[in-house]
Every structure is written in structure tokens, then in C-alpha cells.
């Protein structure tokens, strides 16, 4: 039962990645990173539940719990940044923020 979970986690991660690369709305971009977290959580828990040595542990779940905490922190800071950026330019388009490239 491990492989379907891992495949699903990989699929969620990849979809989040696709969204991160293709969507232009800053909020959606961050939402996609959260989606990648979901895929990882599924993976972590699946690996804890169906370990290769046959002895399940809860480390995966603990790790997933930490991940949720980090995701919350990231969401707070990222959304604050988004608000700040939106206040500056009046748009959420990621293409509006390319000032670090070499002209």
C-alpha cells in the first residue's frame, strides 16, 4: 500500500510545482507551495505507516506536525509580504517584480 501513497504524494508535489511555475498570481503561487507541503505530508505519514523494515513509528507524523508549523509560519510571512507588495504596485502579478535582473 506504500507505493500508491508515495505516487499520490509525488503527484500532489508535482502539481503544486506546476502551479508554482505557471501561475502568475502571487497568492496562488504561495497556495501552490502549500499544496507541495500536502504531498510531502502524505509521503511522510505513508513512510511512517509502511516502513521498509516493517516496524511502524510515529516519527513521520511528528515530522508532519513540524511541517504544518513551518507552513503556518511561512504563510504568515509570505502573506505579509504579498500585502506589502500589493500595496506598493497595486497588482499581484509576479512579473511586476523583476527588479533584481540585470538590465
Amino acid at each position: 500500500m506504500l507505493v500508491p501513497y508515495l505516487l499520490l504524494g509525488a503527484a500532489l508535489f508535482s502539481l503544486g510545482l506546476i502551479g508554482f511555475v505557471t501561475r502568475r498570481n502571487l497568492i496562488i503561487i504561495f497556495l501552490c507551495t502549500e499544496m507541495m507541503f500536502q504531498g510531502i505530508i502524505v509521503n511522510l505519514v505513508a513512510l511512517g505507516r509502511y516502513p521498509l523494515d516493517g516496524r511502524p513509528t510515529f516519527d513521520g507524523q511528528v515530522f508532519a506536525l513540524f511541517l504544518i508549523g513551518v507552513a503556518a509560519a511561512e504563510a504568515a510571512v509570505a502573506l505579509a509580504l504579498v500585502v506589502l507588495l500589493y500595496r506598493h504596485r497595486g497588482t499581484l502579478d509576479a512579473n511586476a517584480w523583476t527588479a533584481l535582473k540585470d538590465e
Partner: protein
Amino acid sequence: MPSALILLLVLGAVGLVLAMPGGRTDRGRLGLVALAAAGGVLVFTAVNLAAGERGLTLFIVCALVALFAAVRVITHRKPVYSALYFVLLVAAVAGLLIGMQAEFLAAALVIVYAGAILVTYVFVIMLAQQARPTLCDLKAREPFWGCLSGFALLTVLAGQFFLGTAAPLPAASPAEAAGTVEAVGTPLLTQYVVGLQLAGLLLLAAMVGAIAIARRRVTVEEELELEGEA
């Protein structure tokens, strides 16, 4: 690698490219049809892979819902709908976690993600709401290359399971191990207590940082004016 999986990946990739915002609506429909076909292939594959395993039905349902929600999150033209589909995704993932006896984590996920984080997202989306859908929502950025690389990654990852030299997968599922609060909380508060403290610190720092970043700079005159109004 089973040919079904290859079919699944190709269908999914084509469907997603078509479904991405920026194309014509009929193309989007076509994409959704392709994606639905991919879902069918997925069910078929999963049944083949884990026939007779417990909780297979739950897995298939939740997986389908999760993938559908994920696709909608990245293809929907309205940010609010994306966020709402993300709630659906979280719910589906919670269902998957329950299937793996991680009940506490499932509850936490729903509470923290769907309850706290997503509310914040929706709040910010509303804050930055524009009158009409803007160009950045209507037009995806290089959907073909994005989908290609994403599915290439997925293909490579999936290939690892079937062609790779990784250790042999467990033949059968081990005994039950319920992820109760006690089961998860004990290692959290003993083995990982330092990490827990650090996570708390991180959250505090993030909170302070968020306030510092998003705070609007108010001049003394504006403040006096506000006081006068009050």
C-alpha cells in the same frame, strides 16, 4: 513501469496543459476530459497495484478528490475558487491520513490548514480583490514548459519505484498503529522536545516578522488626525 502509469502521466500532462488558464474555454473542457480519463486510469492502476489491501476504496476516493482539487487549484481563473478547492484538497488529504491511521494528524491538518491558514489566504485574497479578473489570473505563464517539467519530474519519481535500485518495498502492510494524541504526543514531547521549542520560536518570529512587514507606516500627522477623528 506499467504501461497504464505511462498512459496516466501522458493523459494527465496533456489534460493539464489544455486546462491551464489562458487558452480557449473549449480547450479547457477538452483538458478536463483528458484529466478525467487520467483519473480513470489512476483508479485502474491503483486497483491493480494494491488489490485486496484494506482501505483501498477510501484511498481511491480520497486520491481522486485530492487530485481533482489540486488540478482545480492550479487551473481555476478565480483565486477565491482556488483557495476553496484547496480546502477540498486538505479535506481529501485528511481522509488519506485517516486511511493511514493518523487520526490526530488528520484533525490537526484540517484545523490548522483549512481552519487557520486558508482563512488567512482567503482574507488576503479579499483584501487584494480587484474589480475584474486580472491578466495575471487569466493567463498562465509558459504552461507547456511548466507542465512538461512537472510531469517529467513525476515520471522520474514514479520510475524510481519500478526501475530504480532502491531497497525492496515491504511485501505486506504491518500491524495497525493508531496515531492517537498519546502516540504522537509522546515522541513529540520527549524525543523531539527541542524541535518543538524551536518550532514555537519560529512561529513567534514569523508573527513578529509578519507584523513588521505588513504594518502600514503611519506618520505623526496622520496619527494626530486619526486621534482627532476619534
